[in-house]
């Protein structure tokens, strides 16, 4: 079976500094993969490369066989990759509902002309979008605040909204960038359940970047460790867990386990 995502020899340089070097990864459908490593290791850069924010200096990224390098971000998202961000990037002044509705842009069935005059497929499409958006919000328990501005949501709910918004694009692959940042252990447990549930319910493949080892060890099936842009190891969590010395060497002495 063809892997969902195939990254080969991915390399990216910023004016002489090599942020990512020879990154390789093959992701099968419905896998849950974690990327870990110290700050500045290039993890978010990999996400940025996959989603087209940066154009890779070298290498190839293929989604179901189609080359992504060189495509615009919105084309990549429409092909089926969605993401969340390290620092939440919601549309703060827009309502919760609008945040989710915007993610439907790639699936809109009406043309600008129909939008300008509110004719044709416009009404039915808009109804469909609203219904789907509210359904999604309900499932994430955000429907009660559908009309509030995103900026007034508490932090945890904002993170949830970001994930909901990403899922609204109907992705095959979901990239989560430090979803547990700023959460207490209780919330992290809930997040672990949420991520597993999302994978099961939405049939998505998930790659996540995290520093919280408990989360990573418990839900990831495979781990990739980056440091200074280079892949240090690709291991099953169980292997890393057995050998704490290996872990220490990769991540330094202070590791939140």
């Amino acid at each position, binding site marked *: 079976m063809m892997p969902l995502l195939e990254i080969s020899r991915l390399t990216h340089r910023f004016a002489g500094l090599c942020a990512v070097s020879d990154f390789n990864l093959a992701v099968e459908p419905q896998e849950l993969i974690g990327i870990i490593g110290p700050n500045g290791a290039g993890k*978010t850069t990999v996400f*940025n490369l996959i989603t087209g*924010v940066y154009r890779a200096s070298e290498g190839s990224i293929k989604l179901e066989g189609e080359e992504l390098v060189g495509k615009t971000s919105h084309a990549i998202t429409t092909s089926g990759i969605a993401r969340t*961000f390290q*620092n939440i990037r919601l549309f703060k002044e827009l309502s919760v509902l609008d945040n989710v509705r915007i993610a439907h842009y790639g699936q809109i069935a009406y043309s600008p002309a129909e939008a300008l005059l509110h004719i044709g497929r416009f009404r039915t499409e808009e109804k469909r979008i609203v219904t789907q958006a509210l359904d999604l919000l309900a499932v994430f328990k955000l429907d009660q605040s559908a009309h509030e501005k995103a900026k007034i949501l508490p932090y945890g709910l904002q993170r949830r909204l970001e994930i909901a918004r990403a899922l609204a694009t109907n992705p095959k692959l979901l990239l989560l960038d430090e979803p547990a940042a700023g959460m207490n252990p209780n919330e992290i447990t809930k997040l672990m359940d949420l991520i597993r549930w999302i994978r099961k319910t939405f049939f998505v493949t998930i790659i996540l970047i995290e520093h919280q080892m408990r989360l990573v060890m418990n839900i990831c099936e495979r781990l990739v460790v980056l440091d200074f842009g280079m892949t240090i190891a690709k291991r099953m969590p169980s292997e890393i867990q057995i050998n704490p010395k290996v872990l220490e060497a990769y991540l330094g002495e202070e590791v939140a386990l």
Partner: protein
Amino acid sequence: MAYLFQQALNALQLGSIYALIALGYTMVYGILTMINFAHGDLFMIGAFFCFLLAVYLKMTFVTTMLLSMLGVACLGVVIERLAYKPLRKAPRVSAIITALGVGLFLENFTLALSPYPKHIPSLLENFIWTVGSLSISSMQVLVIVLSLILMLVLDFIVQRTMAGMAMRAISWDKTIVPLMGVPVNAIISLTFAIGAGLGGAAGMMYGLAYPVVDPYMGIMIGWKAFISAVVGGIGNIRGAMIGGFILGTVEIMVAAFLPSTYRDFVAFTLLLVLLILRPYGILGKPQPQKV
């Protein structure tokens, strides 16, 4: 050949004036990320101060220059305190609209007080030196030399004094700098004062070189100087100087070889092309976005 050289001199003259005004824009932008659209009108006020001082108080060249620079500098500080300071936390566009409003106020206030264009008497004897078929006027040389001196002084202040260092620091990070003990408000006022003063000097020089002053002269020149600042990379002092000279050269060269009505059109089109090729200006750097 001589014609070319003649035009080059004109270009330098015009370019110096644009550069001086552009410096005012760029300094304020660098420190407050705000486009002071009233700046062109400060230039105009400088010319009018010069007129008032020369005609009614019959002052000499040097005192007129110093006093009008000082006058415009003070006006700049007053405007900053009254109109811009309350808007430092407001959305940027509000500050810009306020600046437009201040500019309109200055233009129309001057128009109301002085409906007819005024003529500035020459304060210095204008010598014309002829070298072959070339004629160089001392006024031109004066404008160019004086502008260069002012720009050098500014460069010195910004690069080598504590105040200049504070200005540069504030342009990098406005929140941290006060924590380092820097009197931010005073530095901001100083920046405005210097920028306005330079604009005022430009106004006076323009008034002496092209002796008619009218209240709307600041509009077109102000916008052109603004474009120069952006072309050079807004926020960048050296960029503003370069941008000013580029625009001056383009304008004069276009006027020299094409019908004069094409001047603005070709100049703006070339600038547009330049911006499309280098979207952040010549010396400007795109703000990298951390995703």
